[in-house]
């Protein structure tokens, strides 16, 4: 599914990733834990082909770094759902429109294709009562749930979550993690990066610790937690 082979990433003189190798299979959950500047975001940017490795190879499905055109890169990204710490919602569109955009990007424009998918995704994240709200009218947790709905609406093969609870208070963070676990249980592979050991251990799955651009120590396998936070419609 995703394979990094001796991947090094430099930004000028700064070394973000230093000969990192790892692999994940379909449906797996991998959490990268590490402090700020450890190279976690670079790792996600390499998966989405926003940037190319300075050396080494990144393979995502059938896409291999270095041989990906702009149109292929767009195709690759359509197989990935991505969630950012700062949500990255379009402020001039409603919750429904933000999620629908991801469906339309797939080339589906007819209402009978778009509406059921979007409503289902929003129901899944508990936002079916906020269809017409704009991001400015939502709490942080609701914004992140909208971003999750947008990430899962096309049932992607893999969901990438970049510090998804970083900007949230505890209860919202619990809700978001529960949603991510639920998404993972339904079959999507999950790559989550976080600075918070509590989040990493709470997610379940394989934990890889990033330190100064390297995968430090061995792997930790956490069992999937049995208790799930309850997703509520509001906060």
């Amino acid at each position, binding site marked *: 599914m995703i394979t990094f082979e001796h991947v090094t990433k430099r930004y000028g003189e700064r070394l973000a990733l230093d000969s990192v190798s790892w692999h994940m299979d379909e449906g797996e959950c991998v959490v990268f834990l590490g402090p700020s500047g450890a190279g976690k975001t670079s790792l996600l940017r390499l998966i*989405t082909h*926003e*940037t190319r490795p300075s050396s080494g190879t990144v393979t995502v499905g059938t896409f291999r770094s270095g041989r990906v055109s*702009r*149109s292929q890169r*767009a*195709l*690759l*990204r*359509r*197989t*990935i759902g*991505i969630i950012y710490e700062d949500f*990255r*919602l*379009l402020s*001039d569109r409603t919750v429904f429109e933000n999620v629908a*955009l*991801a469906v*339309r*990007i*797939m080339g589906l*424009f007819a209402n009978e294709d778009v509406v059921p998918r979007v409503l289902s995704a929003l129901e899944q994240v508990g936002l079916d009562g906020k269809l017409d709200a704009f991001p400015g009218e939502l709490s942080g947790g609701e914004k992140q749930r909208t971003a999750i709905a*947008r990430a899962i609406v096309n049932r992607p093969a893999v969901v990438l979550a970049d510090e998804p609870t970083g900007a949230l208070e505890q209860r919202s963070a619990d809700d978001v993690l529960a949603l991510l676990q639920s998404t993972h249980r339904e079959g999507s592979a999950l790559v989550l990066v976080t600075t918070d050991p509590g989040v990493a251990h709470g997610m379940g799955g394989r934990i890889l610790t990033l330190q100064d651009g390297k995968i430090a120590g061995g792997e930790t396998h956490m069992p999937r937690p049995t208790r799930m936070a309850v997703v509520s419609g509001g906060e």
Partner: protein
Amino acid sequence: MHWFYFREAWRSFMHHRGLAYTAMFSITAALALSALFALLAHNARVALELVGDRREMVVYLNDTVTPSQRDALIGRLQQLYGNVTYVSKEQAWKEFSEQVGDPALLEAVDANPQPASLRIKLRPELLNYTAMETAAHQVSQFPEVEDVRYGGDWVRRLDELKNGLVRAAVMVGALVALAVVFVLYNTIRLTVLARRPQVEIMSRLGASDRFIAAPFVIEAMLEALLAGMFALALVFGFQQAMAAQIGHVLFLPWTWAVMFLGAVLMLGWLASMLALTRVLRSVGA
């Protein structure tokens, strides 16, 4: 193309109304100048065609030409160059007498010196200096022909004037086209940069360049089309005012107006494609 792209274009247009209005104002001014030149060129063309229609070639015949030779020549010239009218020596003298007017002067002339002639109203495709010169040379080769006159110098000047007007219209048109492309190029660039976060989000969600670019292209074409229509409206107002003042000023034929708007749409498309090709590479990483 799905209506979604048009809705997105309208959303972008309304979101950046100030920028769009400024661009449209600049483009309208440039296009109005171009349309004004087209109006001048059209009216000059109509006027020159009216004058040109009166162009004719006069073929003077030898005094020895028999009626059968003359009729054969008329048939040949009619076939090759256009409508031929025969003017006999007597008719020519009559016309000359009417032009001179003074009987004393006419009495001084012993015999009728006017030759018989053929007046050829040339076909439209021969109403230019080069064609007329060639035709005159060919006609002069017939043995029945004494001389050929067609006002070569006058025809040449008329053609030069017409060609000069066409060249000026083309030059102004080209300059205005460059100005329109420049204004739209920068407007679309600024619009994309102003919407950079949105473009980046779309790119990261897997939107293709076409998906991202289409609304901006439609927006540029919409701005260009509206500016083109305003420019035509301004020139129509000018034409009406001039027609009221001096009369006989025509507006552009509708085919010209449609071609003008078509060209403006093409410029909008070209400018936006140029801008987007560059800017999407830097924004949509």
